[in-house]
């Protein structure tokens, strides 16, 4: 349990650094560390597959693209436009609403019994695959079609530009 609290502290700490660091590239690097702590959380919950996929997909691919884009844009504090106070206030209110909604939904669900204790081997690749392809086959396939359509849409947009 103390390990969990330590990792959770690191997650919160690094995500705060993401927001507060001035340099956008440093922000992304802290975001990478944040995702790494998430991977550790998954492993602590015995979800090996989810953890390693989080590691590969988020840390290894998506954030590389983030970093790639930011490095190309070469942002720095001098050239960045200053946001007006109104925008800042709107941002704070929007973020606060999201926080309240999340906390409320967690509170309503009220499920304090950890899922992992009922079936500690659920996170292993074999069991996860069986569950995904039997019990949740339809949602799984529908979400894959959603991803495919997003991909086709992106290609279409890129073609239109040129």
């Amino acid at each position, binding site marked *: 349990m103390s390990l969990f609290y330590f990792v959770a502290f690191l997650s919160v700490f690094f995500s705060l650094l993401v927001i507060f660091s001035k340099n956008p*590239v440093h922000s992304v*690097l802290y975001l*990478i560390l944040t995702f790494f702590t998430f991977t550790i959380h998954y492993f602590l919950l015995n979800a*090996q*597959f989810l953890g*390693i*996929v989080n*590691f*590969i997909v988020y*840390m*290894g*691919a998506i954030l*590389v*693209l983030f*970093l*790639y884009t930011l*490095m*190309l844009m070469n942002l720095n504090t001098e050239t960045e436009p200053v946001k007006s106070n109104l925008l800042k206030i709107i941002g704070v209110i929007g973020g606060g609403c999201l926080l309240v909604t999340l906390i409320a939904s967690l509170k309503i669900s009220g499920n304090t019994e950890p899922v992992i204790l009922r079936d500690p081997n659920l996170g*292993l*690749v074999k069991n996860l695959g069986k569950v995904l392809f039997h019990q949740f086959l339809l949602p799984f396939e529908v979400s894959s079609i959603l991803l495919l359509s997003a991909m086709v849409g992106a290609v279409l947009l890129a073609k239109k530009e040129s």
Partner: protein
Amino acid sequence: MELALVLEKFILVAIIFGISLVTAMYSTYAERKVAAFLQDRVGPNRAGPFGIFQPMADGAKMFMKEEIIPTQSSGLLFIVGPSLAILTACIGSAVIPWGQKLTIGSRVIDLQVTDINVGILYIFGVVSLGVYGIMIGGWASNNKYSLLGAIRAASQNISYEIAMGLSIIALLMLTGTLSLRQIAEQQHGFWSNGWFTWNVFRQPLGFIIFIICAFAETNRSPFDLPECETELVGGYHTEYSSMKLGFYLFAEYINMFISSAVMATLYFGGFNFPFMHHLGLSENLVTILGVVALFIKIIFFIFFFMWVRWTIPRFRYDQLMDLGWKVLIPLAIANIVLTGVFATIFK
């Protein structure tokens, strides 16, 4: 007993780490000798007989050189870059099965640091992490050429990771496991049930895709665009000097060693060799011969890496992207479909 296990693993890790470093060191020597052989030259022959102390001389030179950190660079990240590169290169070896079990007295020693059940995915994760070392280093140098090298490395790695993953999926459809030890054990011996047991004979197309992607992931020629001297001065490590440059170069050779080991394990039977249980040898001797067989395969692949480097010229950048996205990915998907069809017919 628990302490003994920790001690055993610690010794194993130390040995593997040492072997990785020594292999990487001698790969630099081998590379120059192979280059010399292919170009009809002599190669390094001054330090010791046949120049075998050349890597030590090179290493000493690297350590003695002046350390330059550019004043306009972002200080800490400039050091983090090469450290991350060498770190990610070294941790990949943890899941590779180096041999079968060794019995000393009453103790059975597993010649693998850890057999996690997502072994292949772990290797994948480490490979995808490897690009950060180059990206961070290239960006922190605050040099346009370094940045271009870093960006090339990033886009190249991401593009070829997809084809690599798809080629692995076809292999996993046949093996039905993600654990590297089980995959190695399934390829036991050389011949059974009327067909070769090694996966390269069951997944020839998948292997070709995998090895091309391995070249791209390790930034080896013909895909060494991140360090293309003719266009980028020196590539992502233009600003680096001394041992920090050494770490980048060293990481490349360790990556080559690890990817050779992975290829040997996944496709060429790992520690298996023909007639391994028909020779009437004791278990321990078979295990040791298996380790030797694995290393022969690894050395062959390292030689293959060098052979290609001194044979094929570098790709142009658009050709690299075309090959990755328009050739390898469709081929890998076709391979998955074919594997599925064959696996259903010959069940």
